Protein backbone atom coordinates (compact mmCIF):
# COMPACT_ATOMS: atom_id res chain seq x y z
CA UNK A 1 0.00 0.00 0.00
CA UNK A 2 1.32 3.41 -0.91
CA UNK A 3 0.53 5.93 1.83
CA UNK A 4 -1.41 9.09 1.09
CA UNK A 5 0.59 11.98 -0.33
CA UNK A 6 2.05 14.58 1.99
CA UNK A 7 0.10 17.82 1.52
CA UNK A 8 1.86 21.05 2.42
CA UNK A 9 2.23 24.73 1.56
CA UNK A 10 5.55 25.78 0.14
CA UNK A 11 6.57 29.35 0.99
CA UNK A 12 6.93 31.52 -2.11
CA UNK A 13 8.14 35.09 -2.59
CA UNK A 14 6.05 37.99 -1.29
CA UNK A 15 4.86 35.98 1.70
CA UNK A 16 2.78 33.77 -0.58
CA UNK A 17 2.46 30.01 -0.60
CA UNK A 18 1.98 27.21 -3.11
CA UNK A 19 0.02 24.07 -2.42
CA UNK A 20 2.12 20.95 -2.97
CA UNK A 21 1.45 17.22 -2.85
CA UNK A 22 4.41 14.91 -2.45
CA UNK A 23 3.97 11.27 -3.35
CA UNK A 24 6.82 9.30 -1.79
CA UNK A 25 7.98 6.19 -3.62
CA UNK A 26 6.84 2.79 -2.31
CA UNK A 27 8.80 1.70 0.81
CA UNK A 28 11.14 -0.67 -1.03
CA UNK A 29 12.26 2.27 -3.21
CA UNK A 30 12.52 4.78 -0.36
CA UNK A 31 16.33 4.72 -0.33
CA UNK A 32 16.73 4.55 -4.06
CA UNK A 33 13.81 6.07 -6.01
CA UNK A 34 13.82 5.23 -9.69
CA UNK A 35 13.28 8.87 -10.58
CA UNK A 36 11.82 12.12 -9.33
CA UNK A 37 9.06 13.90 -11.22
CA UNK A 38 7.63 17.39 -11.00
CA UNK A 39 4.08 17.49 -12.36
CA UNK A 40 2.96 20.68 -14.14
CA UNK A 41 -0.78 20.94 -14.51
CA UNK A 42 -2.66 22.23 -17.57
CA UNK A 43 -4.29 25.63 -18.03
CA UNK A 44 -7.42 26.94 -16.28
CA UNK A 45 -10.42 24.59 -16.38
CA UNK A 46 -8.34 21.76 -17.86
CA UNK A 47 -6.51 21.63 -14.53
CA UNK A 48 -9.74 20.91 -12.68
CA UNK A 49 -10.91 18.33 -15.18
CA UNK A 50 -7.61 16.45 -14.98
CA UNK A 51 -7.19 16.52 -11.19
CA UNK A 52 -8.42 12.96 -10.68
CA UNK A 53 -6.29 11.50 -13.49
CA UNK A 54 -3.22 13.30 -12.17
CA UNK A 55 -3.82 11.96 -8.66
CA UNK A 56 -4.22 8.39 -9.91
CA UNK A 57 -1.14 8.62 -12.10
CA UNK A 58 0.92 10.06 -9.23
CA UNK A 59 -0.15 7.17 -7.03
CA UNK A 60 0.69 4.59 -9.70
CA UNK A 61 4.11 6.15 -10.30
CA UNK A 62 4.83 6.25 -6.55
CA UNK A 63 3.90 2.58 -6.27
CA UNK A 64 6.29 1.83 -9.12
CA UNK A 65 9.13 3.49 -7.20
CA UNK A 66 9.08 7.10 -8.39
CA UNK A 67 8.88 10.23 -6.26
CA UNK A 68 6.34 12.77 -7.55
CA UNK A 69 5.75 16.37 -6.55
CA UNK A 70 2.61 18.22 -7.66
CA UNK A 71 2.52 21.98 -7.34
CA UNK A 72 -0.43 24.32 -7.83
CA UNK A 73 1.01 27.24 -9.77
CA UNK A 74 0.48 30.86 -8.66
CA UNK A 75 -3.22 31.78 -8.82
CA UNK A 76 -4.26 28.16 -9.44
CA UNK A 77 -5.94 25.61 -7.19
CA UNK A 78 -5.20 26.31 -3.54
CA UNK A 79 -2.06 28.38 -4.05
CA UNK A 80 -1.86 32.11 -3.24
CA UNK A 81 -3.06 34.92 -5.51
CA UNK A 82 -5.82 35.17 -8.08
CA UNK A 83 -5.52 33.65 -11.52
CA UNK A 84 -5.77 37.14 -13.00
CA UNK A 85 -2.64 38.24 -11.15
CA UNK A 86 -0.45 35.37 -12.32
CA UNK A 87 2.17 35.78 -15.04
CA UNK A 88 4.09 33.23 -17.08
CA UNK A 89 7.27 34.36 -15.27
CA UNK A 90 5.56 33.62 -11.93
CA UNK A 91 4.88 30.10 -13.11
CA UNK A 92 8.47 29.64 -14.27
CA UNK A 93 9.57 30.75 -10.79
CA UNK A 94 7.18 28.17 -9.34
CA UNK A 95 8.82 25.45 -11.43
CA UNK A 96 12.19 26.39 -9.89
CA UNK A 97 10.58 26.40 -6.45
CA UNK A 98 9.16 22.94 -7.07
CA UNK A 99 12.49 21.66 -8.37
CA UNK A 100 14.31 22.91 -5.26
CA UNK A 101 11.74 21.24 -3.01
CA UNK A 102 12.00 18.00 -4.96
CA UNK A 103 15.81 18.12 -4.64
CA UNK A 104 15.47 18.53 -0.87
CA UNK A 105 13.26 15.51 -0.57
CA UNK A 106 15.00 13.34 -3.17
CA UNK A 107 18.65 14.32 -3.64
CA UNK A 108 19.72 11.63 -6.06
CA UNK A 109 17.49 10.41 -8.87
CA UNK A 110 17.02 11.22 -12.54
CA UNK A 111 14.78 14.25 -12.94
CA UNK A 112 11.67 14.32 -15.10
CA UNK A 113 9.42 17.30 -15.77
CA UNK A 114 5.95 15.96 -16.43
CA UNK A 115 3.63 18.30 -18.28
CA UNK A 116 0.03 17.84 -19.32
CA UNK A 117 -1.24 20.00 -22.21
CA UNK A 118 -0.09 23.61 -21.54
CA UNK A 119 1.97 22.22 -18.64
CA UNK A 120 4.29 20.82 -21.31
CA UNK A 121 4.81 24.33 -22.70
CA UNK A 122 5.84 25.52 -19.25
CA UNK A 123 8.11 22.52 -18.76
CA UNK A 124 10.03 22.95 -22.01
CA UNK A 125 12.76 25.43 -21.12
CA UNK A 126 16.43 25.46 -20.22
CA UNK A 127 16.50 24.90 -16.46
CA UNK A 128 20.29 24.86 -16.36
CA UNK A 129 20.45 21.19 -15.42
CA UNK A 130 19.79 17.79 -17.00
CA UNK A 131 16.05 17.23 -17.41
CA UNK A 132 13.95 14.50 -19.01
CA UNK A 133 10.39 15.13 -20.15
CA UNK A 134 7.23 13.15 -19.68
CA UNK A 135 4.68 14.81 -21.95
CA UNK A 136 0.97 14.02 -21.87
CA UNK A 137 -0.95 15.29 -24.90
CA UNK A 138 1.44 18.23 -25.05
CA UNK A 139 0.40 21.50 -26.61
CA UNK A 140 3.12 22.42 -29.05
CA UNK A 141 2.33 26.07 -29.55
CA UNK A 142 1.45 28.65 -26.92
CA UNK A 143 -0.09 30.81 -29.59
CA UNK A 144 -2.57 28.06 -30.38
CA UNK A 145 -3.12 27.39 -26.68
CA UNK A 146 -4.05 31.03 -26.16
CA UNK A 147 -6.31 31.03 -29.19
CA UNK A 148 -8.13 27.93 -27.94
CA UNK A 149 -8.60 29.54 -24.54
CA UNK A 150 -9.91 32.80 -25.99
CA UNK A 151 -12.29 30.81 -28.18
CA UNK A 152 -14.13 29.82 -25.01
CA UNK A 153 -15.43 33.37 -24.93
CA UNK A 154 -16.48 33.19 -28.57
CA UNK A 155 -18.27 29.92 -27.93
CA UNK A 156 -20.06 31.40 -24.94
CA UNK A 157 -21.27 34.39 -27.00
CA UNK A 158 -22.12 32.29 -30.03
CA UNK A 159 -25.79 31.75 -29.23
CA UNK A 160 -26.38 35.48 -28.91
CA UNK A 161 -24.63 36.11 -32.21
CA UNK A 162 -22.09 38.39 -30.55
CA UNK A 163 -19.04 36.26 -31.39
CA UNK A 164 -18.14 37.98 -34.67
CA UNK A 165 -15.09 40.18 -34.30
CA UNK A 166 -14.81 39.25 -30.65
CA UNK A 167 -11.40 37.58 -31.05
CA UNK A 168 -9.85 40.81 -32.36
CA UNK A 169 -11.46 42.70 -29.54
CA UNK A 170 -10.04 40.31 -26.91
CA UNK A 171 -6.57 40.46 -28.43
CA UNK A 172 -6.80 44.23 -28.53
CA UNK A 173 -7.63 44.39 -24.82
CA UNK A 174 -4.68 42.15 -23.95
CA UNK A 175 -2.32 44.12 -26.19
CA UNK A 176 -3.40 47.29 -24.39
CA UNK A 177 -2.37 45.70 -21.11
CA UNK A 178 -5.85 44.95 -19.85
CA UNK A 179 -7.13 41.66 -18.45
CA UNK A 180 -10.00 39.83 -20.13
CA UNK A 181 -12.55 37.54 -18.53
CA UNK A 182 -12.82 34.12 -20.16
CA UNK A 183 -15.09 31.35 -18.88
CA UNK A 184 -14.89 32.54 -15.30
CA UNK A 185 -11.13 33.15 -15.40
CA UNK A 186 -9.57 36.59 -15.46
CA UNK A 187 -6.67 36.35 -17.90
CA UNK A 188 -3.97 38.94 -17.27
CA UNK A 189 -1.86 40.39 -20.11
CA UNK A 190 1.41 39.06 -18.60
CA UNK A 191 0.10 35.51 -18.53
CA UNK A 192 -1.39 35.77 -22.02
CA UNK A 193 1.80 37.14 -23.58
CA UNK A 194 4.00 34.57 -21.83
CA UNK A 195 1.77 31.72 -22.89
CA UNK A 196 1.56 33.05 -26.44
CA UNK A 197 5.35 33.14 -26.74
CA UNK A 198 5.86 29.62 -25.35
CA UNK A 199 6.80 26.85 -27.75
CA UNK A 200 7.45 23.18 -27.21
CA UNK A 201 11.02 23.47 -28.46
CA UNK A 202 14.14 21.69 -27.24
CA UNK A 203 16.35 23.69 -24.88
CA UNK A 204 19.25 22.74 -22.64
CA UNK A 205 21.27 19.52 -22.63
CA UNK A 206 19.45 16.70 -24.46
CA UNK A 207 17.90 13.92 -22.40
CA UNK A 208 14.94 11.57 -22.77
CA UNK A 209 11.41 12.45 -23.83
CA UNK A 210 8.43 10.16 -23.32
CA UNK A 211 5.59 11.56 -25.42
CA UNK A 212 2.13 10.10 -24.86
CA UNK A 213 -1.09 11.05 -26.57
CA UNK A 214 -4.63 9.80 -26.21
CA UNK A 215 -7.23 8.91 -28.78
CA UNK A 216 -10.53 7.09 -28.63
CA UNK A 217 -9.62 5.36 -31.91
CA UNK A 218 -7.76 2.09 -31.89
CA UNK A 219 -5.71 2.85 -34.99
CA UNK A 220 -4.78 6.40 -34.05
CA UNK A 221 -1.44 7.89 -34.99
CA UNK A 222 0.28 11.07 -33.86
CA UNK A 223 -0.96 14.30 -35.44
CA UNK A 224 1.28 15.82 -38.15
CA UNK A 225 2.10 18.71 -35.82
CA UNK A 226 3.28 16.28 -33.12
CA UNK A 227 5.36 14.36 -35.68
CA UNK A 228 7.10 17.55 -36.76
CA UNK A 229 7.74 18.69 -33.19
CA UNK A 230 9.20 15.31 -32.24
CA UNK A 231 11.47 15.47 -35.26
CA UNK A 232 12.76 18.85 -34.07
CA UNK A 233 13.60 17.39 -30.67
CA UNK A 234 15.34 14.38 -32.19
CA UNK A 235 17.35 16.62 -34.50
CA UNK A 236 18.51 18.46 -31.37
CA UNK A 237 19.81 15.19 -29.94
CA UNK A 238 16.94 14.18 -27.64
CA UNK A 239 15.94 10.53 -27.31
CA UNK A 240 12.20 10.68 -27.99
CA UNK A 241 9.76 7.82 -27.70
CA UNK A 242 6.15 8.47 -28.65
CA UNK A 243 2.96 6.46 -28.44
CA UNK A 244 -0.79 6.86 -28.62
CA UNK A 245 -2.85 5.23 -25.88
CA UNK A 246 -6.56 4.61 -26.14
CA UNK A 247 -8.78 6.70 -23.90
CA UNK A 248 -10.87 9.86 -23.60
CA UNK A 249 -9.54 13.44 -23.63
CA UNK A 250 -10.05 13.58 -19.86
CA UNK A 251 -8.82 17.21 -19.55
CA UNK A 252 -11.79 18.47 -21.58
CA UNK A 253 -14.62 15.92 -21.51
CA UNK A 254 -17.95 17.07 -20.09
CA UNK A 255 -17.84 14.46 -17.34
CA UNK A 256 -14.74 13.63 -15.33
CA UNK A 257 -13.29 10.70 -17.24
CA UNK A 258 -10.28 8.45 -16.74
CA UNK A 259 -7.74 6.90 -19.08
CA UNK A 260 -6.22 3.97 -17.16
CA UNK A 261 -4.28 2.83 -20.25
CA UNK A 262 -2.38 6.10 -20.27
CA UNK A 263 -1.33 5.58 -16.65
CA UNK A 264 -0.24 1.99 -17.33
CA UNK A 265 1.75 3.03 -20.41
CA UNK A 266 3.36 5.87 -18.47
CA UNK A 267 4.53 3.59 -15.67
CA UNK A 268 5.85 1.20 -18.31
CA UNK A 269 7.64 3.98 -20.18
CA UNK A 270 9.48 5.10 -17.06
CA UNK A 271 10.37 1.61 -15.84
Amino acid at each position, binding site marked *: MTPHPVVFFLPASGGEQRLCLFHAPAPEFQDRPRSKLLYLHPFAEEMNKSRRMAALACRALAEAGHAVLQIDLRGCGDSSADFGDASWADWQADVRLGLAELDNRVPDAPLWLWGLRAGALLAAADWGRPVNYLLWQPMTSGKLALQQFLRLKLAAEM*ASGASKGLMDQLKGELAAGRAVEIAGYLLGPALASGLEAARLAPAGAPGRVEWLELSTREDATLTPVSEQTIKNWMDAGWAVRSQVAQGPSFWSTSEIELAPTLIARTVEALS
Partner: protein
Amino acid sequence: MDKDQVLGHVLRLLDDVLSLNGRAQTFTRDTALLGALPELDSMAVVSLITALEEQLGLAVDDDDIDGDTFATVGSLADFVAARLA
Protein backbone atom coordinates in the same frame (compact mmCIF):
# COMPACT_ATOMS: atom_id res chain seq x y z
CA MET B 1 -14.53 11.46 -47.45
CA ASP B 2 -18.19 11.25 -48.50
CA LYS B 3 -21.11 12.81 -46.65
CA ASP B 4 -21.90 9.71 -44.61
CA GLN B 5 -18.29 9.38 -43.48
CA VAL B 6 -18.21 13.01 -42.43
CA LEU B 7 -21.43 12.52 -40.50
CA GLY B 8 -19.93 9.43 -38.85
CA HIS B 9 -16.85 11.39 -37.77
CA VAL B 10 -18.92 14.25 -36.44
CA LEU B 11 -21.12 11.90 -34.42
CA ARG B 12 -18.11 10.08 -32.99
CA LEU B 13 -16.44 13.36 -31.99
CA LEU B 14 -19.68 14.60 -30.42
CA ASP B 15 -19.98 11.39 -28.47
CA ASP B 16 -16.35 11.52 -27.26
CA VAL B 17 -16.18 15.19 -26.37
CA LEU B 18 -19.60 15.39 -24.73
CA SER B 19 -19.31 12.05 -22.88
CA LEU B 20 -22.57 10.84 -24.44
CA ASN B 21 -21.77 7.13 -24.03
CA GLY B 22 -23.02 6.17 -27.47
CA ARG B 23 -26.09 8.41 -27.41
CA ALA B 24 -24.78 10.35 -30.42
CA GLN B 25 -25.29 7.26 -32.57
CA THR B 26 -29.05 7.82 -32.25
CA PHE B 27 -28.70 11.39 -33.59
CA THR B 28 -29.86 12.34 -37.08
CA ARG B 29 -29.01 15.34 -39.21
CA ASP B 30 -32.01 17.12 -37.72
CA THR B 31 -30.96 16.67 -34.10
CA ALA B 32 -30.62 20.12 -32.52
CA LEU B 33 -27.32 20.85 -30.78
CA LEU B 34 -26.71 24.37 -29.51
CA GLY B 35 -29.24 25.29 -26.85
CA ALA B 36 -30.83 21.83 -27.00
CA LEU B 37 -27.99 19.64 -25.77
CA PRO B 38 -27.01 20.68 -22.22
CA GLU B 39 -23.60 18.99 -22.54
CA LEU B 40 -22.66 21.40 -25.35
CA ASP B 41 -21.28 24.22 -23.20
CA SER B 42 -18.59 26.63 -24.34
CA MET B 43 -15.75 24.35 -23.27
CA ALA B 44 -17.32 21.49 -25.24
CA VAL B 45 -17.67 23.70 -28.33
CA VAL B 46 -13.98 24.62 -28.19
CA SER B 47 -12.99 20.99 -27.56
CA LEU B 48 -15.04 19.97 -30.59
CA ILE B 49 -13.35 22.57 -32.78
CA THR B 50 -9.94 21.51 -31.51
CA ALA B 51 -10.74 17.87 -32.20
CA LEU B 52 -11.91 18.75 -35.73
CA GLU B 53 -8.67 20.65 -36.34
CA GLU B 54 -6.39 18.00 -34.88
CA GLN B 55 -8.10 14.83 -36.03
CA LEU B 56 -9.54 15.86 -39.39
CA GLY B 57 -6.88 18.44 -40.19
CA LEU B 58 -9.28 21.21 -41.10
CA ALA B 59 -8.66 24.85 -40.32
CA VAL B 60 -11.43 26.64 -38.42
CA ASP B 61 -11.56 30.40 -38.62
CA ASP B 62 -12.53 32.33 -35.49
CA ASP B 63 -15.47 33.83 -37.36
CA ASP B 64 -16.74 30.30 -38.09
CA ILE B 65 -17.51 29.96 -34.39
CA ASP B 66 -21.07 30.89 -35.00
CA GLY B 67 -24.46 29.78 -33.71
CA ASP B 68 -25.55 28.65 -37.17
CA THR B 69 -22.60 26.23 -37.45
CA PHE B 70 -23.53 24.43 -34.26
CA ALA B 71 -27.32 24.58 -34.62
CA THR B 72 -27.87 20.96 -35.65
CA VAL B 73 -25.90 17.81 -36.40
CA GLY B 74 -26.57 18.49 -40.10
CA SER B 75 -25.27 22.08 -40.02
CA LEU B 76 -22.10 20.95 -38.24
CA ALA B 77 -21.56 18.08 -40.67
CA ASP B 78 -22.05 20.42 -43.65
CA PHE B 79 -19.57 22.86 -42.15
CA VAL B 80 -16.98 20.11 -41.80
CA ALA B 81 -17.66 18.73 -45.28
CA ALA B 82 -17.27 22.20 -46.83
CA ARG B 83 -13.87 22.67 -45.19
CA LEU B 84 -12.62 19.23 -46.13
CA ALA B 85 -13.57 19.68 -49.77
